[in-house]
């Protein structure tokens, strides 16, 4: 190899190493704190009628360790947005982590009509402490720590003035010992419906004709970009199929949030943490017919 070639190779390698280092620094110290307000438009005639003029926010995968810089950013952004509804799609704690800071964060959430939530797999990583989301410590009494309403395989009918709709929460932990049927979609035929489900794979279990909109999280958008095939190969089916964004199947719609926190390692590259503002709008075709 000539001296010039060696020099080119050296500089190429050095450049690559520096680029990799810069990306790693960005991924660890910059992007995990670059909170994005993600406005997501969802074409859905029935939901546009009942929620079209409302501010609906989704937060997911907070993995709170302390109510620190990132959490303060989220709370400040929510103050500015003044949401009518906040939907939380699970994973408020670290794996077998402490529950005090996540509960403190939940206590600071406010929305005009209410804050509704489901739990994620991390939230159940300590089953005894997971009770604290709904109950006072070692008691069956409802918690007074926060005003978040947890939906555990249950429904609530909401009406913000423009007509009623169903809000359902699909619990993360399936009881394999005594399996029960998950959410029955039959009830959703009469009214518009939103389902909160931490795990996006539950979308596959919905009857295609339900017409429901499911909001999920769990994937973090992968935290870094990788092709679906790679996620599939390493056994992350959720990321392979529903990494982030909007999906449709039959008459159903799924939106998967990248979430806010991180798990395993604090790293995000081109997968910014996000607060999602959901805008339910009439489909273009139906809007044209009415005009």
């Amino acid at each position, binding site marked *: 190899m000539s001296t010039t070639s060696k020099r080119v190779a050296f500089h190429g390698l050095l450049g690559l190493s520096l680029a990799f280092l810069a990306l790693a620094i960005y991924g660890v110290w910059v992007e995990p704190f670059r909170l994005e307000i993600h406005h997501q438009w969802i074409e859905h005639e029935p939901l546009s009628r009942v929620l079209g003029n409302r501010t609906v926010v989704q937060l997911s995968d907070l993995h709170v360790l302390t109510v620190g810089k990132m959490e303060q950013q989220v709370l400040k952004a929510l103050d500015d947005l003044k949401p009518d509804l906040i939907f939380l799609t699970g994973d408020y704690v670290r794996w077998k982590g402490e529950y005090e800071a996540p509960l403190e964060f939940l206590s600071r959430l406010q929305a005009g009509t209410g804050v509704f939530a489901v739990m994620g797999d991390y939230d159940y990583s*300590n*089953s*005894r402490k*997971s*009770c604290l989301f*709904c109950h006072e410590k*070692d*008691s*069956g009494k409802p918690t007074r720590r926060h005003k978040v309403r947890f939906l*555990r395989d249950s429904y609530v009918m909401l009406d913000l003035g423009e007509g009623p709709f169903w809000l359902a929460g699909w619990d993360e932990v399936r*009881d*394999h*010992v*005594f*399996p*029960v049927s998950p959410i029955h979609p039959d009830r959703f035929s009469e009214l518009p419906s939103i389902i909160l489900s931490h795990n996006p794979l539950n979308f596959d279990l919905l009857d295609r004709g339900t017409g429901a909109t499911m909001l999920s999280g769990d994937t973090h958008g992968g935290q870094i970009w990788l092709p679906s095939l790679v996620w599939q190969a390493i056994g992350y089916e959720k990321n392979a199929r529903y990494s982030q964004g909007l999906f449709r199947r039959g008459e159903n719609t799924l939106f998967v949030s990248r979430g806010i926190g991180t798990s395993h390692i604090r790293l995000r590259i081109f997968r910014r943490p996000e607060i999602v503002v959901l805008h339910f709008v009439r489909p273009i075709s139906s809007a044209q017919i009415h005009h």
Partner: protein
Amino acid sequence: MHRPLLFSLLGLLLLLPGCSPQRATEQILSDFESDSELDQLQWKCHTLFSLSDTHTTHGGFCLKMDLYPSSYPGVAFKLRTRNWSSYGSLGFDLFNPQPTALPLTIRIDDRLDYPDYPDRYNASFSFTPGMNHFVLQLKDLVTAGSRKPLNLRQIHRFLIYMVDPAEGATFYLDYVRLSPTIGAPFASP
């Protein structure tokens, strides 16, 4: 005596206890003596666990279970001992403070894959008001459908629960154990 022969005999004597059939000693599955034992239980809605120093039969505390109306409120044990084949019976002490007898179901799985009702041990027993010393002979453990004996070498799950109770109930549970003896079977009224 010839020295090598003496050593051989001594060696044989030392080996003898190892050759005799191994007798299991009592194995306590749960005794509920510390708060950390509560962490080992699977907590779920409609069942509240706490330690109690009343109605104990072994040690200083027992498990107080407050069961609320729901499908299957109760307790699932985390099993450290999966091989039950060297034991004769499963026992526990249960105090029923209600004025009437109440049924509790015992489920034991010898498969990891959550067997359906016919393929697991599933039996209901009535527990009278007051203290009940429950003993279940392990030779009687058969699946609910095909009456096939359970594989005692691989027990994966053991639960005690109510089925769809209309009203809440409280029980005090203590001294959950595997015993080498068969013991007198529990007389369910």
